[in-house]
C-alpha cells in the first residue's frame, strides 16, 4: 500500500544548534578511533522543531528553573562544617567551567569511576559534614544540572588512561551489546542499528548522554542519566541495576565515550 499511516522520520534534521544566538554547539562530530558509528549526532537533531527551539533559547528552556535552583543550593550552607559549595569553590562560573564535560573520572580512593552526582556526595560527606543525596533526591538533579551547565558548549571527553578506566569502558561496552529482558534487546539494537527511525511514536536517536540531566516534556521534569538508563533497560522487560551501581557506572563511562566531542547541552530538552 502506497498510502500507509507511516510518517517517515527521515533521520536527524540538518540544522545548527546555537544557544541564545551566541553559543555554537557541536551537535555533529567525527567519532573517536574504534567507534562503530560514522558520525556522532546529538539527540537534539531527532526532536521536533518545537522541542529544538525550546532548547535553543535559555529563557524558553523550562529546565533553566532547575539550574537556578542548583545555583541557590550551591550557595546554601549545610552540614556540621557550616559550609556551602561556594565556601570552597567560589564562583561556579569560574571554578566549575568545563569540569562537567570530563566526567566520569577515575576516583583512586573509591577504586572506581565517579560521576558528578557522586562527586557532589563526596564533598557533602567529606567536606561539609552533610548527608549524601539519595538517588534523584534532594538537590541532586538541580545541582548536577547547575554544574554541567557551566560546561555548556564544551565538547565531552573522558580520560581512559587514568586508573582502571579502560576496564570499566570494556565492561560498559559489554553491557551495551548485551540483550536484556523478555524483549531480548540491547542498547545497540535501538541506538546503533535503528537510530533515525520511528519506534511507534518515538524517533530513535543515538542515545547520547551530552544533554543530561535532561528536561523531558513527557514527564514535565528534569531526568537524570541513570534514571534514563534504567528506563531503557526496564523497557526491554528486564530487572534493572541500582543507580550508581558498578554496572551503570561502567555503562556511563562507555556511553559517554560514544559521545566524545559532542557539546555538553545540559539542560537539554527532549520529548
Amino acid at each position, binding site marked *: *500500500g502506497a*498510502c*500507509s*499511516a*507511516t510518517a*517517515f*522520520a527521515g533521520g536527524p534534521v540538518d540544522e545548527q544548534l546555537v544557544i541564545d544566538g551566541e553559543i555554537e554547539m557541536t551537535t555533529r562530530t567525527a567519532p573517536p578511533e574504534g567507534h562503530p558509528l560514522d558520525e556522532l549526532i546529538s539527540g537534539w537533531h531527532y526532536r521536533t522543531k518545537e522541542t529544538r527551539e525550546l532548547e535553543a533559547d535559555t529563557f524558553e528552556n523550562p529546565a533553566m528553573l532547575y539550574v537556578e535552583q542548583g545555583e541557590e543550593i550551591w550557595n546554601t550552607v549545610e552540614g556540621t562544617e557550616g559550609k556551602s559549595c561556594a565556601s570552597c569553590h567560589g564562583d561556579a562560573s569560574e571554578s566549575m567551567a568545563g569540569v562537567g564535560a570530563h566526567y566520569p573520572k577515575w576516583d583512586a580512593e573509591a577504586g572506581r569511576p565517579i560521576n558528578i552526582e557522586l562527586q557532589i556526595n563526596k564533598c557533602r560527606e567529606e567536606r561539609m559534614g552533610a548527608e549524601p543525596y539519595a538517588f534523584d533526591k534532594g538537590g541532586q538533579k538541580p545541582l548536577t544540572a547547575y554544574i554541567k551547565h557551566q560546561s555548556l558548549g564544551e565538547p565531552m571527553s573522558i580520560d581512559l588512561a587514568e586508573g582502571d578506566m579502560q576496564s570499566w569502558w570494556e565492561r560498559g561496552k559489554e553491557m551495551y551489546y*548485551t*540483550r*536484556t*529482558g*523478555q*524483549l*531480548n*534487546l*540491547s542498547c545497540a*539494537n*535501538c541506538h546503533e*542499528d*535503528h537510530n533515525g*527511525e*520511528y*519506534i*511507534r*511514536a518515538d524517533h*530513535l536517536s543515538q542515545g547520547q548522554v551530552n544533554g543530561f540531566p535532561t528536561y523531558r516534556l513527557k514527564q514535565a521534569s528534569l531526568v537524570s542519566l541513570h534514571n534514563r538508563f534504567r528506563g531503557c533497560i*526496564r523497557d*526491554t*522487560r*528486564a*530487572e*534493572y541495576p541500582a543507580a550508581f551501581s558498578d554496572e551503570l557506572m561502567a555503562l556511563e563511562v562507555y556511553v559517554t565515550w560514544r559521545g566524545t566531542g559532542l557539546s555538553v547541552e545540559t539542560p537539554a530538552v527532549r520529548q
Partner: protein
Amino acid sequence: AIMASSAVAFGEMAPGDVKIMDMKVSGSLTGVPGDPAEGRKVFADRKLGNCLACHAVSDQSDQQFHGEVGPELDGVADRWSVDELRAIVVNSKAIFSEQTIMPGFYTLDVGINVRKDLVGKTILTAQQVEDVVAYLATLKE
C-alpha cells in the same frame, strides 16, 4: 491476566517443543483456528504484540503511530506462507538472523535479567500467536 501466562493450556504446544524447520512451523500451536479480528488487536496492543511499534500497515491506519524499524506489512501474506509467518512470530531469530531487533514472541530464548514476574513466560500465548498469524494471512494485495 493481560500478559502471556506460563501455564500452557491443554492441547497447546509448549515453547520448547515448537520445531522450526525449513523456516516453517508446520501446523497450529493450539489446534484452535486463529481469530484474525483478535489478532488485529494483539498486533496493535502495546502490552501484547506491539507490532505497530516497528511495522506500519495500511489496514490499521486508524491507529496513530506506526513504526518504521521493520518493513511495512502490507501484502506480507503474498511474500510468506502461513507456516513461515508462524515461524517468524514464534522466533524471528531463527528466520532472519541472530542480529534482528525483532523479539521472538513464543520462545524462551530471551535476554538476561528478565523481569522476575516474566521469567519462563513468553510474550504472547500460543493462541495469541495463532490469532496474529491469522491476521497476517489477511494482509494480501
